[in-house]
């Protein structure tokens, strides 16, 4: 079984190596096919591993193995490990499965781009990095995977590197992720200093020896990493910009897998977080704020991918709320369904963008329902799942989180519950605003000009793009059925062992209640959206320019986070660096010790320079007088 995991891990790496070294010998399409086959193989192995794991007795479902010692110094020793348990297996399947579908989708989407081989190499590399992250048996290896996915994300966001905006977005993403990495690393340091180990088993085993403060600080530092990677407040600003990357990248990395790594981290480290309840509360609060804010911002965005990006942020905030409430299974469940419906949405958006020849602005869309009925249908499923309408998958998973809040029945629980419901309303609004703007209403002049000929020529998209969408749509529609309250509990029971300290699981009644309320709220949201956006009216603009203008303005500027960071960090850093470089370093360290000493010496030299009048005789005279005087002194003294 572990061999299968190793194979799963190795396959994408082999893909990267082969594509990098021999990619030029492959036909353009071959690269995509090859990468997809690799992914398919990885998915199969991962799935088989999952099944094998499931066939084991429950108490033997945790397997660890070390390939080689990666780094050692004294008593610090880190291996290249796998840690294969229920969570890992699930994540493996999600990553490889969704990854496979998105690879297939990419074959069509990237067709005609001159650098497909590079794209697929990067994609495979991302998958490898993600797998390293999830199979890791220790924190350092987790950090490596953490960094490598950041690197892959950087490469993929900046894939179209001739676009300045893409390069900037990539850099931004990388740097913010680096901050998260640092937080994570410092957390690891702390854990090592306190516990003397960095392996999961060691940390989990001795977590109870930590004081609450130590545990809280460690968890807080880990949380920093999680926040950055999962684009949560306050380290979320990179995610919207990351939409500069190709759409499959957005689907794979910025929706399905990488951004959920924070959730995975917290879920994985739950035995530790157990000893830091305040941090868990903080996670909930951050999550609630994040889901509200992101949802609100999503309502006013105009870029199709940005809307989905903010939606992603909002949904991950839900997951944070879930894990923050110790309902780890719920968070992971939402992660699971979210991977499907968000990938679906992104790919749907990708189809639209593809059909509109790269256009992403919703204001240039509209009325595509008739031109692209299949896409519309899938997108609608995705939207409903996102909004959490019963019985689509999103509904079950989100309601599981909310009901956990209800179940906790504390201030934090109620905050989570209330916030979550408001968030659900917003979800409904922005999701269906998007759908209405894109698919309903009249064809925009641009779309009218561009779309019909393209669609007539290609259809809604090549089969390689449509089939993954269908499969994801199926998943988005029905995967919620894994966990029907009171009936099925595949997820909760499967994930139960990962948390030795128990998990919050709401009762079936609470869940059903939440489902009812959630669906209702979602429907309300849809109605509001329909009211405002189904037909062209001046209502949104009236709100935007009228009473709500301050809020609308703030939302359009994404709540001023970017401006804040620019003025707080970016500019002062640049100013300081410029000042140090231009004024301090050049003067104090480059000029002063070399030319400066010369100048100073010359200054003192000039003050005694009058003695050197250039007349040699006068020197000789001084010399002679001196000797005469000296001799005289000797004579006088001698007598």
């Amino acid at each position, binding site marked *: 079984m572990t061999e299968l995991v190793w194979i799963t891990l190795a396959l994408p790496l082999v893909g990267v190596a082969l594509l990098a070294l021999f990619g030029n010998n492959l036909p353009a399409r071959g690269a995509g096919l090859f990468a997809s086959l690799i992914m398919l193989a990885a998915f199969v192995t991962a799935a088989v591993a999952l099944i094998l794991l499931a066939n084991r007795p429950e108490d033997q479902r945790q397997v660890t193995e070390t390939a080689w010692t990666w780094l050692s110094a004294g008593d610090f020793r880190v291996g290249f490990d796998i840690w294969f348990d229920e969570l890992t297996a699930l994540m493996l399947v999600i990553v490889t499965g969704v990854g496979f579908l998105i690879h297939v989708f990419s074959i069509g989407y990237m067709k005609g781009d001159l650098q497909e081989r590079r794209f697929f190499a990067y994609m495979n590399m991302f998958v490898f990095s993600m797998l390293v992250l999830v199979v890791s048996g220790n924190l350092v290896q987790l950090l490596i995977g953490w960094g490598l996915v950041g690197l892959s994300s950087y490469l993929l966001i900046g894939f179209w590197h001739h676009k300045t905006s893409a390069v900037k977005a990539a850099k931004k993403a990388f740097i913010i992720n680096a901050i998260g990495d640092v937080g994570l690393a410092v957390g690891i340091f702390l854990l090592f200093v306190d516990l003397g180990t960095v392996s999961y088993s060691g940390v989990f085993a001795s977590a109870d020896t930590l004081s609450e403060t130590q545990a809280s600080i460690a968890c807080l530092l880990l949380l920093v990493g999680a926040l950055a990677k999962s684009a949560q407040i306050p380290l979320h600003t990179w995610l919207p910009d990351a939409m500069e990357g190709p759409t499959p990248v957005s689907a794979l990395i910025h929706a399905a897998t990488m951004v959920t790594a924070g959730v995975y981290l917290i879920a994985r480290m739950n035995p530790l977080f157990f000893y830091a309840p305040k941090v868990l509360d903080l996670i909930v609060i951050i999550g609630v704020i994040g889901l509200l804010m992101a949802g609100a911002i999503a309502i006013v965005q105009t870029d199709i991918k940005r809307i989905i990006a903010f939606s992603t942020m909002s949904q991950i905030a839900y997951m944070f709320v879930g894990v923050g409430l110790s309902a780890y299974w719920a968070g992971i469940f939402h992660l699971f369904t979210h991977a499907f419906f968000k990938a679906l949405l992104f790919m749907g958006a990708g189809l639209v963008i593809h059909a509109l020849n790269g256009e992403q602005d919703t204001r240039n869309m509209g009325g595509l329902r008739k031109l692209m009925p299949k896409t519309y249908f899938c997108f609608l499923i995705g939207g409903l799942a996102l909004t959490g309408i019963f019985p689509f998958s999103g509904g079950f998973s989100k309601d599981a989180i909310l009901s956990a809040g209800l179940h906790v029945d504390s201030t934090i629980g109620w905050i989570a519950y209330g916030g979550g419901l408001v968030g659900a309303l917003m979800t409904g609004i922005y999701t269906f605003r998007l759908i209405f703007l894109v698919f309903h209403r009249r064809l925009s002049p641009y779309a009218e000009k561009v779309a019909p000929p393209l669609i007539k020529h290609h259809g809604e998209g090549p089969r390689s793009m449509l089939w993954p969408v269908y499969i994801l749509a199926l998943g988005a529609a029905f995967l919620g059925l894994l966990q029907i309250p009171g009936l099925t509990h595949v997820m909760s029971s499967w994930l139960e062992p990962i948390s030795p300290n128990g998990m919050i699981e709401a009762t079936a009644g609470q869940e059903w209640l939440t489902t009812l309320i959630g669906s209702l709220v979602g429907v309300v949201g849809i109605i509001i959206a329909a009211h405002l956006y189904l037909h062209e009216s001046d209502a949104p603009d009236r709100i935007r320019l009228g009473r709500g203008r301050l809020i609308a303005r703030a939302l359009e500027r994404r709540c001023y986070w970017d401006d804040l960071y620019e003025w707080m960090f970016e500019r002062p850093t640049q100013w300081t660096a410029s000042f140090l470089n231009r004024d301090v370093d050049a003067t104090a360290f480059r000029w002063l010790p070399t030319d400066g000493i010369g100048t100073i010496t010359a200054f003192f030299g000039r003050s005694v*320079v*009058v003695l*050197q*009048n*250039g*007349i*040699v*005789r006068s020197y*000789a005279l001084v010399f*002679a007088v001196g000797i005469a005087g000296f001799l005289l002194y000797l004579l006088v003294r001698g007598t």
Partner: protein
Amino acid sequence: MSVGIPLFLGVSAILFTIGLIGVLLRRSPLTILLSLEVMLNAVNLSLVAFSRQIGGSDGQVFALVVMGIAAAEVVVGLGLVVAMTRRSMVLDTDELRTLNG
């Protein structure tokens, strides 16, 4: 030895003084060099005289060394004079003061 060593030393002192006056008062580099030679020779005389006084050859060796060094000094000094001539410079040390402060 019918002449006392102090007489030689006295002559040496007088010669030295004359040379020194020449160095101090003359301005032509050539004459200054010549005056320097007078001074060196005066010293040589006293070295030889002292050598005779103590009856060893050390002073004479010293005098020979002084001669060698004097030859070297003259070569360099005259080389400078020649260089100055080739560059059409004035042969007057009071005028050659471009190296003043």
